[in-house]
Structure formats: C-alpha cells, structure tokens
C-alpha cells in the first residue's frame, strides 16, 4: 500500500515536472517512465522479498512445524512462489492502473495498450520470481539477490551475448555460449513497453508465444527448485 502511494505520488510529481521539459512529448515520457518505473520496482521487490523468503523461515525456524505436517516439500515451495508472484504482479497491475489514471487525467486519453505490455511484464516477473525461489532454496539471501538481478540483466542481454560471442571467438566458446544462450530466459520477448507507448497493442500470437514460453520456463525452474528443496536437510 505504501509502495503504491509512493509510486503514484512520484509519478504525479514527475509528470508535472518533466512534461513541460519534454517539448510536447510529455505523454510519452510519463508512460515510458511509468512503465519502466513500475516494472523496475516490481522486479526489485520480487528479488529482495524473495531472496530472504526461505532464509527467514529457516533462521526463525518457523519452517520446522510446517514441514512436519502432511505437506509435500513441493507444495510448500510452490506456495511461496505463487504468493510472491501474485503479490508482485498485483502491485505491477495496480501501478499500471495508477499510470493509466494519471495519463487519462493529464492528457485526456486512456493508454489501454499499456495493459498488454503489463501482462507480458507479469510473466517476466514470474520468471524472475522463479529464479529467486530456486536460489533461495539453497543459498544465502545475498547470493540469491545477486543471482536474481543477474538473471534480469543477462536475460535482457541474451541476444547480445550470442552476437558478441559469434564474432571471432573460438569454436568452444561459441558452443558454450550457444548452449548458455538457449538456457537463459529471453526476457526481451516480454518487453512490449516500446509498443505500448506508441499505442500499439500486442499481437495475440506474440502474447500466446510469450506466455507459453514463460510458463514453460517457470515450470522448469520450479521443478529444479523442488528437486533441490526436497533434498534439503535442516540442522
């Protein structure tokens, strides 16, 4: 709630301050910054909340009495994942709503296209959350946060990595990079912010492909996380 309030406030102030400087492009700037800001905020929240997700339970030992109950380890982990994902996605959606409101009030037209982009961003958020849950099941919060952020960076760089590696690198490096490339989440698939700001809606085929790809990737990560967590012992 607090975060939403701050976001809305920052957006309003920002749009008032920046719009006149943008030489008529105020609406674009507000939408761009609104989308970028809300996604960054939601991603950071996912990483930092998620990084201590399991660690907190282990440290406080609240997990002992829960895991002794008739619950699969996988259920527990899935519950954590879904809780985190829905929280951050809901926050993202709320921020998008505030953005739409600010733009409607300030510029008279409602930027419906942003909701398509936000939908894809929510799937991207799911992938980031799954990465964080995976790492939090076996390493420290600090490392989990690091890997979470790295996943976001690398995910956007996936294409570039391949491009850079394919030029003048020895075959072994190229081979490794190819396989790493395929394993990485290609987060650029979920980036429809550019389209949204120009008022273009996301094509249904892309929506379908991205959601399926994201869904499969998330399932893959969660299966891995469950396998790790199942073997986990508690001292």
């Amino acid at each position, binding site marked *: 709630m607090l975060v939403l309030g701050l976001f809305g406030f920052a957006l309003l102030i920002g749009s008032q301050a920046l719009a006149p400087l943008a030489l008529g492009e105020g609406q674009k700037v507000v939408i761009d*910054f609104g989308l970028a800001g809300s996604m960054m905020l939601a991603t950071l929240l996912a990483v930092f909340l998620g990084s201590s997700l399991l660690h907190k339970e282990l440290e406080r030992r609240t997990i002992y009495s829960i895991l002794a109950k008739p619950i699969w380890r996988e259920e527990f982990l899935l519950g954590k994942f879904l809780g985190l994902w829905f929280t951050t996605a809901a926050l993202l959606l709320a921020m998008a709503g505030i953005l739409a409101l600010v733009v409607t009030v300030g510029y008279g037209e409602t930027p419906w296209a942003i909701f398509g982009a936000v939908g894809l961003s929510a799937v991207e958020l799911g992938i980031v959350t799954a990465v964080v849950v995976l790492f939090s099941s076996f390493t420290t919060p600090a490392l989990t946060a690091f890997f979470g952020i790295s996943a976001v960076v690398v995910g956007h760089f996936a294409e570039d990595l391949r491009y850079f590696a394919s030029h003048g690198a020895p075959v072994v490096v190229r081979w490794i990079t190819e396989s790493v490339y395929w394993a990485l989440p290609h987060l650029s698939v979920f980036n429809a912010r550019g389209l949204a700001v120009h008022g273009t809606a996301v094509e249904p085929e892309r929506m379908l492909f991205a959601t399926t790809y994201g869904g499969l990737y998330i399932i893959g990560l969660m299966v891995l996380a469950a396998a790790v967590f199942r073997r986990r012992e508690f001292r």
Partner: protein
Amino acid sequence: MARIDRDLLTGLLLASLFFWGAARSELLERRKLTAIREEELLYYPSGYAVRGAAMGYETAAADLAWLRGIQYYGEHRLTDQKYDLIGHVMDIVTELDPSFVQPYVFGAFVMAQEMKETERGLDLLERGMRANPTNWRLAFEVGFLHYVCRHDYVSASRYFTWASRMPDHEPYVERFAAFASQRAGNTGMAILLWKQVLATGNEYMQEVAKRELQRLGVR
C-alpha cells in the same frame, strides 16, 4: 509494522541526504564551464551498445536522452547558439526508440535551420523514414527542409505528395503538396509553411518560425 516504519524512516533519511548531496553537487557543477558539462554527452555510447545498456527500458532511456537533448539545446540557445552535439544526442534517442518521431524532426530542424547543416538533417530524417516507412510527418519534414533550406521545389513537392499518401496525415499536407507542385510563389509558399510550423511545432520551433516570418516581412 514498527519494523517497516523504521526502515522507511531510514530510507527517507538516506534519500534526503542523497538529494541534498545531489543538489549541492549540481550547484557546484553550474559554476563550472558549460563545455565541461557536455563532455558527458560525448560519452553516450552509440550504436548497438546503447540498446544493450538499456536492458529492456529502451523507450524510457530514449526519453531520458531526449530530455537531456532538449536541455542542451535550451542552454545553448541562451548562450552561444551552437548545437554541435544535437545530432549525436538525437542519434542516441532514435537508436533507442526508432519509432520516436519527434527527435528526427527536431534534430533535423535544428541542424538544418540553426546550424545550416541541411545534409545532416536530411540524413537523420531519412533514417527515420526507413524505421517508420508509413509515417507522414517525417516525409513532410523532408519536404519542408528541401523547400525552405535547399530551395529544391521539385524534391519538396515529391516528398509532400508522398506524405499526403501516408495514413492519418494532417489535411494541410495535401495543400502543400498542391501548392508546391504549382510553385505558387516562393515567398508565399514559404510563409505558409512557416505559419504551419507556428501552428503545430513545439515552442522552440515556434520561435524559429516567428523569426523567419519576421524576416520574410510578416507581422
């Protein structure tokens, strides 16, 4: 709840410290020569690396560069009227967000009109046209520059006509297409074009338009 409040308080404290620090350094900066400040603009990477650095937030990064570019222009308008880096900045903006039309238009305008580098302006606009083939505005601006700066009425007419065939164009495009082909008097046409800029351009372009109209003897 108490724990969250404490964190919030710490966060606010840190934020205000940060802003205080930033404001102070900003004040310090202003005392330095303008030239030194702009070195930063030169360090904006260009090309492929720019998109990579933006990491999913390309359009927002484009906006940031756009705002910086406007700021740069505004400062130099008040001082030496030299806008050497405007091309570079607008290149960055359009590299990050190729469908952002205004930077092509404004950049070309400044380069052609204020710096008398019409060719560079046209290059920028043509890049924009390649990235946005169905955009009428870019074609129109190319025509505008051909007419007003290069006095190449044939090319101007051709581009105005092209623009008039693009979807969602403004009605005045057809008028200019018609007049240009009729060559209804150079000055008269130029006045009309500048009056159009006065009506639809951003505030900087409007000021240039006023200046030009004054020069042509209007008002």
